[in-house]
Every structure is written in structure tokens, then in C-alpha cells.
């Protein structure tokens, strides 16, 4: 982005997450650092188990309590330290400041309540000052380009398609007016056409509301068309980070190069796909 380098909204330094199970210690993430500014999109990419989700969950204490899980390092939201906050203080950060949208809308939504009830619940919890909760619900649903918000508010999750469920999840996140949206694989379970609609929607929201987005994904296509910065993770460590164009077109790390090389691309039919192993062996 070519704007003035404003003060970062979120400053993460040397964040680490360790899980303790009996006598076994697993380092899920270590040495994770990044800045996130208002209106900016940071993509975190990596394979399953690379630690890309766990560091974003650590920001608002969404991990098991100590001693099962230890979070180290620092994460400052507008200068205020998040790591080590009490549960009460974290509740005021969750939703209100940092909201989450997860991969599977079908499992994130409660099947026995209608959509309107679930959004209203989030509003009541995170924005108790709102008087007209029903109006806030309808506003949120229309912000995600749902044509008939009143009908969707009365619908149960099973009555909606996957794309509509994900819109409802995003509406729920927006209803709390967050500064940062963590989108953890928001389109992995969706068809490409629906994926495009959801990503277009997120792009518009980031532009209109200057919302910062932490996008966790393994889809490099989405990264290159959507993110300002990229962070590549492997085995809990950041192997490379930088502006999207730089990382995508001239990756410095062989692992990043391998990850990009092994994706089949439309219109570039090769006899054989490059594997990560080929690429790592070559370097």
C-alpha cells in the first residue's frame, strides 16, 4: 500500500505457542512477529500443522488454559498487551476488537437456533450499548449483501447454502464492529464461484470499513489477488514474510518456492507436477 505508514493496529512480537500433553511438549508456533495496520490484509499460508491458525487463536486466548497450553511473547492491540489478559478483559477484545470467521460455517453455527438469534446473541454480549438489537442484526445481514435479511434472520442454518451460511458468519463478525477480522480458511469448504463472491465481499468490507484482515489460507491464488503482505509458515516457524508481489514472484526461501511450484495452474499443462520434495532437493 502506498499510504502513509500509520501506527500498526496490531503488533505481534516473538509469539510462541507450546502444548503440553503428559510429558510430551509440542511447539506449535515460535518466533512469530508481524504488524497489521487498519485496512490491511495479511495472509498467513502454510500446510496443515504449520501453526498458521494457532497463532491467531492465541491473540484472544482461544486456546486451552495453562498448563496444557503456554503462550509466550507479545501481541499489542493499539499498544495494549493482549497476552496474559484476564478472561474478562479478553471477552471485551473478542468480537468487539478482533472477530473470527472459521472454515466450516456448517459446524460453527448452532443448528437449533435461527441465524437472527445467533447474531443478536453476539451483539448483546459484545456491544451491550446497542439498544435496537434487531435492527443491528438486519444491518449486519444487509452489509454482507444478503438481499432478504429478514427472511435469512428467521432461517435455521440447515435451510441455507454453504455460501449463505458463510455470509451469515461474516455478518455475525461484522455486527460487533471489529477492527480486525481473522478469516481462517473462509472459503476452503466452498465452490470456486461462491469463493469469489465471499472474497469480493471481504475486499469491499476492508475498503469501506478500513477493517484489517488476517487471512489464514493455503490457497496462493487468493493470496495473490487479495493480500498486501504474506507470511509463510512451516513447522511452527515463519520461513518467509514480505509484500505479496515479492513473495509470490521472487520467493527467497526454497520451501516457499516449492509450495508455489507444486500448484497446478490453469492453462499451463505440464507432463508432471513439481513436488515440494523435487524443489527442496534442487536447492
Amino acid at each position: 500500500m502506498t499510504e502513509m505508514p500509520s501506527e500498526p493496529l496490531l503488533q505481534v512480537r516473538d509469539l510462541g505457542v507450546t502444548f503440553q500433553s503428559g510429558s510430551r511438549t509440542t511447539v506449535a508456533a515460535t518466533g512469530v512477529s508481524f504488524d497489521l495496520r487498519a485496512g490491511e490484509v495479511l495472509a498467513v499460508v502454510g500446510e496443515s500443522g504449520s501453526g498458521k491458525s494457532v497463532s491467531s487463536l492465541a491473540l484472544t486466548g482461544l486456546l486451552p488454559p495453562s498448563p496444557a497450553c503456554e503462550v509466550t511473547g507479545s501481541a499489542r492491540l493499539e499498544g495494549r498487551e493482549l497476552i496474559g489478559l484476564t478472561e474478562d478483559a479478553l471477552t471485551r477484545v473478542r468480537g468487539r476488537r478482533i472477530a473470527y470467521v472459521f472454515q466450516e460455517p456448517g459446524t460453527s453455527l448452532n443448528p437449533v437456533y435461527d441465524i437472527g438469534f445467533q447474531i443478536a446473541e453476539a451483539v448483546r454480549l459484545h456491544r451491550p450499548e446497542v439498544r435496537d438489537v434487531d435492527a443491528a442484526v438486519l444491518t449486519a445481514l444487509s452489509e454482507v449483501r444478503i438481499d432478504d435479511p429478514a427472511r435469512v434472520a428467521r432461517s435455521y442454518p440447515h435451510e441455507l447454502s454453504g455460501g449463505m451460511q458463510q455470509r451469515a458468519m461474516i455478518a455475525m463478525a461484522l455486527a460487533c464492529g471489529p477492527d480486525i477480522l481473522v478469516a481462517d480458511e473462509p472459503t476452503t469448504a466452498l465452490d470456486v464461484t461462491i469463493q469469489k463472491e465471499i472474497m469480493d465481499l471481504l475486499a469491499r468490507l476492508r475498503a469501506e470499513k478500513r477493517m484489517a484482515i488476517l487471512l489464514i489460507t493455503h490457497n496462493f491464488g487468493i493470496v495473490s489477488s487479495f493480500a498486501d503482505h504474506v507470511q509463510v509458515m512451516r513447522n511452527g516457524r515463519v520461513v518467509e514474510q514480505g509484500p505479496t508481489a515479492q513473495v509470490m514472484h521472487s520467493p527467497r526461501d526454497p520451501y516457499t518456492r516449492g509450495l508455489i511450484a507444486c500448484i497446478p495452474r490453469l492453462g499451463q499443462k505440464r507432463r508432471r507436477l513439481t513436488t515440494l520434495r523435487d524443489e527442496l532437493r534442487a536447492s
Partner: protein
Amino acid sequence: MNPSTPPLLEVRDLAVHYPVRAPWFFMPTPGPKKAVDGVSFSVPRGQTVGVVGESGSGKSTTGKAVIRLAPVTRGAILYDGVDLTGLGSADFHPYRKRIQMIFQDPYNSLNPRTDVFGILSEPLEIHFPAMSRSEREARCEQLLRSVQLTGDDLRKHPHEFSGGQRQRIGIARALAVQPELIICDEPVSALDVSVQAEVVNLLQDLQESLGLTYLFIGHDLAVIEHVSDHVLVMNAGRIVEQGPPETILRDPREEYTRRLLEAVPKF
């Protein structure tokens, strides 16, 4: 395609309709759900036909109908010249050996309580009852090696493997009975991109060495383009267009295919 040799599989006007029950007994019964409605294509021996489409397009149901995992309402499924739809279950039995299937979710398609030997030897017990246990064991070890696992893995259980390794076990199970046609139902959709590349390469190597024929169902257009000799684009139970990937996925004639292609993020 070579017109002189008949295709291994020929599907003519296939339809799979599911009856829909009325929500209450006094309401009129709605019309059937037409999951697949009038689909025709053929799969030449040794080639790969790719099927793409969105969820609900009927692509998986088409694959399942071929091996009787979905009920055929209308149409013919000619396998090596024989119409499978007219066969009784005893007559169909040999085709269960000749046609195998690989499923999308490597976590749910393997029995968690059986070790790898049990998983691989079950199809052998059914289709090769004369095989002794030691012969089965030797065959299972050889199968594991063919999917780049080792004989030591025979005594392990599914939870001890990664997603990619489990998909390899699924492939080994399909190969166990020496099939001719394998229906690959989104075999790499649940895998990381790095693992996806390895499994796709493995499937192509096996096709070459064993002369396999694939009906490859997927939603990733780039993967389908990579593996296919011929592509079917499906929407709402029908084939929108079909042809070689170079024309279908580069210069589509149909608006629907164009929209699918445009939705793929470029980089």
C-alpha cells in the same frame, strides 16, 4: 480418441432421480430430485475423463451410479459392451472387482479399528478366495510399496498416518483386486497442495504402469486440466459441455464454464 476400439465405459442418457417425501402426509408429494438427468459420455481404455462442477452438480452421483452406489432411474451403463444396469447382483459381482473407487476423505473412508493389512486384505478375501494368508500378506506388502509406503506399515492403524499417507492406503485398497477402471471421487481435494502434487503424480504413474482407466471427479479446474484427456463440465445434473481440456478450459463455448473459469483466482 481411437474410434476403432470400443470405449471401456459408455454411459448413455443416465438419470438418477431421488424421490422426495412430502413434508407432511397430507401435502402433495413433490417431484423427484433429479441429481443426474440425461448424461452421456464415454471413457476410452487407458485414458482419464475428468468431471468438474460445483457441489450439487451431480458429478459424484454420476460416478457412484456406475458402481451401484446410486440408484439408476434411466439410461444405460455399458462396461466393456455389457449393460450393467440390467444385471442381477450375482452377475454384477465380477464388475465390483473390475471397477474400484477412491474416495475424497481419507479420514472417513478407512476403518479406524482395522490395521492396514486388514483394510487391504478384505477385498482380496472377497475377490480372490483361493489366496492363502501368506500370499495375501505378500500381495499387501507389494501394494504398499507400489504407493510408496513400506511393508512395516501393514500392522499400523489409520490414525498413525497423515492425510496423504491415508489417501495412498485408499489407493492401495482400490488396486488390490487389479481393477481396470478406478472412479476417483475428489481424491486430492482434502489434501495440502504439496501432498496433492505427490498423490496426483502417483495416480498418473500407476495409470501408466498398470494401464488403468480413470473417471476423475473434482472441483479444482487446474487439477482436472492436468490429469484429463477429456473433460465433462456438469451443472444441475446435466453435462454443460465436454471435450479435450485444451478447448474446454481455454476457450469454453458455454457461459457456465466461462463463469467457473473466471472465478478461479489467478496468480
